[in-house]
């Protein structure tokens, strides 16, 4: 009996020593385990925040939230490998913006497109090849391969159909250079295909190597590159007529839908009559314009009288002025007399 009591009291003491791992919260936290994130929506204790022991309160709060997060973390499935227990984190739920936009898919090269269409798949090649002459594994490419090649080709035969004084090594080197240049040219061609740079009209082009479409495009560009956008550019008799560029206006056919025409006209009349919403004509503005026009006409008609006499110029009453007056009179006289054919 005593022993039982002793054991029970020992258990109680042990239980007291061990601190609890559960935390009481009004509202449960929001967890994002993938980010190791725990958000506490509960209201804060503002008195504690403003008290002297702010840091203590913050630490207690953080400890409680961290405990809850750990409770969640320890529920995740674990794996043990080499005495290390790891936990698999799920994907993050909260979306974080990326630092760069998603990569665009690489455009396929000419060969890749053909291979895809034909269903040709790549054979994985080994990095080293067994060389039967040298009896060892030689890398497929690189400096060591070049070294092995030099070992193998320490002598090169001059075949019968070739001039006996040719340098076979130089020829081999030349061939290699040609192969490298061809590869580079094809690479650049692939780059150019996918670059979407205007090929016409920007850089001078070899006319003999351009396609028909490129030439017509170049001609059209040249025709368009005038101040009037090619409206008055002369065209050769056999040139293709230019495509209409820019905004296209649609005109309804002259004969055909009479009912639709009637409807349209009636609608227009209605809109003209409307004063507020959907008013096509602003009656006030139109009236003002008419009034203004009449006034201008009246003013112009008043001005007409001296106008009939000719442009009135203000000439000062000086010697120079006298000269000017004479000159004008002479001109006027000449004009009239000239008209009569004298």
């Amino acid at each position: 009996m005593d022993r039982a009591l002793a054991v029970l009291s020992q258990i109680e003491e042990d239980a007291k020593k061990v601190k609890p791992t559960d935390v009481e919260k009004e509202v449960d936290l929001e967890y994002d385990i993938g980010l190791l994130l725990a958000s506490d929506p509960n209201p804060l204790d503002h008195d504690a925040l403003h008290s002297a022991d702010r840091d203590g309160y913050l630490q207690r709060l953080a400890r409680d939230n961290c405990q809850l997060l750990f409770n969640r973390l320890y529920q995740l499935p674990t794996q043990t490998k080499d005495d290390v227990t790891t936990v698999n984190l799920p994907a993050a739920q909260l979306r974080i913006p990326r630092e760069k936009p998603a990569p665009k898919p690489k455009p396929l090269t000419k060969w890749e497109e053909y291979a895809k269409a034909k269903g040709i798949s790549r054979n994985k090649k080994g990095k080293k090849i067994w060389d039967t002459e040298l009896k060892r594994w030689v890398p497929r490419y690189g400096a060591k391969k070049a070294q092995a090649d030099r070992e193998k080709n320490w002598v090169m035969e001059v075949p019968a159909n070739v001039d006996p004084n040719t340098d076979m090594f130089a020829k081999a080197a030349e061939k290699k250079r040609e192969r490298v240049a061809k590869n580079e040219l094809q690479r650049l061609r692939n780059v150019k295909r996918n670059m979407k740079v205007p090929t016409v009209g920007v850089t001078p082009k070899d006319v003999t190597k351009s396609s028909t479409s490129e030439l017509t495009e170049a001609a059209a560009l040249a025709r368009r590159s005038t101040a009037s956008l090619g409206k008055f550019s002369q065209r050769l008799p056999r040139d293709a007529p230019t495509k209409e560029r820019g905004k296209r206006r649609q005109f309804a056919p002259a004969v055909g839908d009479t009912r639709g025409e009637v409807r349209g006209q009636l609608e227009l009349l209605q809109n003209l009559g409307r004063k507020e919403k959907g008013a096509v004509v602003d009656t006030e503005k139109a009236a003002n314009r008419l009034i203004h026009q009449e006034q201008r006409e009246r003013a112009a008609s008043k001005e007409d009288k001296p106008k009939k006499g000719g442009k009135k110029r203000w000439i000062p009453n000086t010697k120079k002025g006298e000269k000017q007056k004479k000159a004008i009179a002479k001109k006027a006289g000449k004009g009239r007399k000239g008209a009569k054919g004298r």
Partner: protein
Amino acid sequence: MGVKGRIEKTKTRKGKKHLESRAPKLIENEKKLMLLKGHKTNAVLQECLKDLASLKRPHSILLNRKRDLLPFEDITPVEQLAAKMDASLFAIGSHSKKRPQNLVLGRMFDHHLLDMIELGVQNARALHDFKNAKVAAGTKPCLLFAGEPFKDNDTYVRLKSLLIDFFRGEQATAVRRAGFEHALSFTASQEGVHMRSYRVTTQRAGGQTPRVELEEIGPSLDLVLRRHRLASDDLFRRALKQPKELKTKKVKNISDGKLGAQMGRIHMEKQDLRKINTRKLKGLKTGRDAALAAAERKQAEEVAG
């Protein structure tokens, strides 16, 4: 276009790898933090910048030169520097009479500004003010946010997203259970955000989960919200866009059978039975009989003739 689409090929493998590392990728690198000093900085702010750099080490770079930067007026010098350093997070510290101990935290998208928030640092305590053992660099921290503003206030919501972006660490699928050693807590009150950093220790408790204890290691900052320039909704949505390839594909028509074997359904398309490729056996060829008969007849004629 990528590295392969360049006109000039990279001359070295190292150069090629460097460019590939900076190019847009499916799974991105950890965001690098660039710390800059403004026209004038005081001792407290300099300590603060140093501590932030050490929190994000090795994905941080602290530039020592003081630059005449006014991010809210002209952000282009910052954008250019960030593009050069390949850093998408930045922190600019400056001190003036009008804005004492000012810290501008921001992030970039595609080398252009996404968000930036200006905070005033108060009651700062640096890492060396806490005389205790710290946490290893590169530890993925537990992020704890408390306070209603982080849910209600739009600016605070963005600030929360920004802080998560800053401190979330590497994207890891598997973490050592004993490796949860660092905790960062951000508590939002009326005055602003209180940032505290703790080391996490665990003790055996009765149940499965251990008892968690925290020890403050610093830095400890009280941040007051000042100005902000946040991204427009559509720019933010563009930045959030994930590439299609990362979406987990749903596996259809396959289920786990009752005895442990996987059961699947195959849906066949309609086949033209005349065009099916079967094994070709010579004997089954049409017209073979007639051809054989004709050959025999010929042979017979030759023999006879």
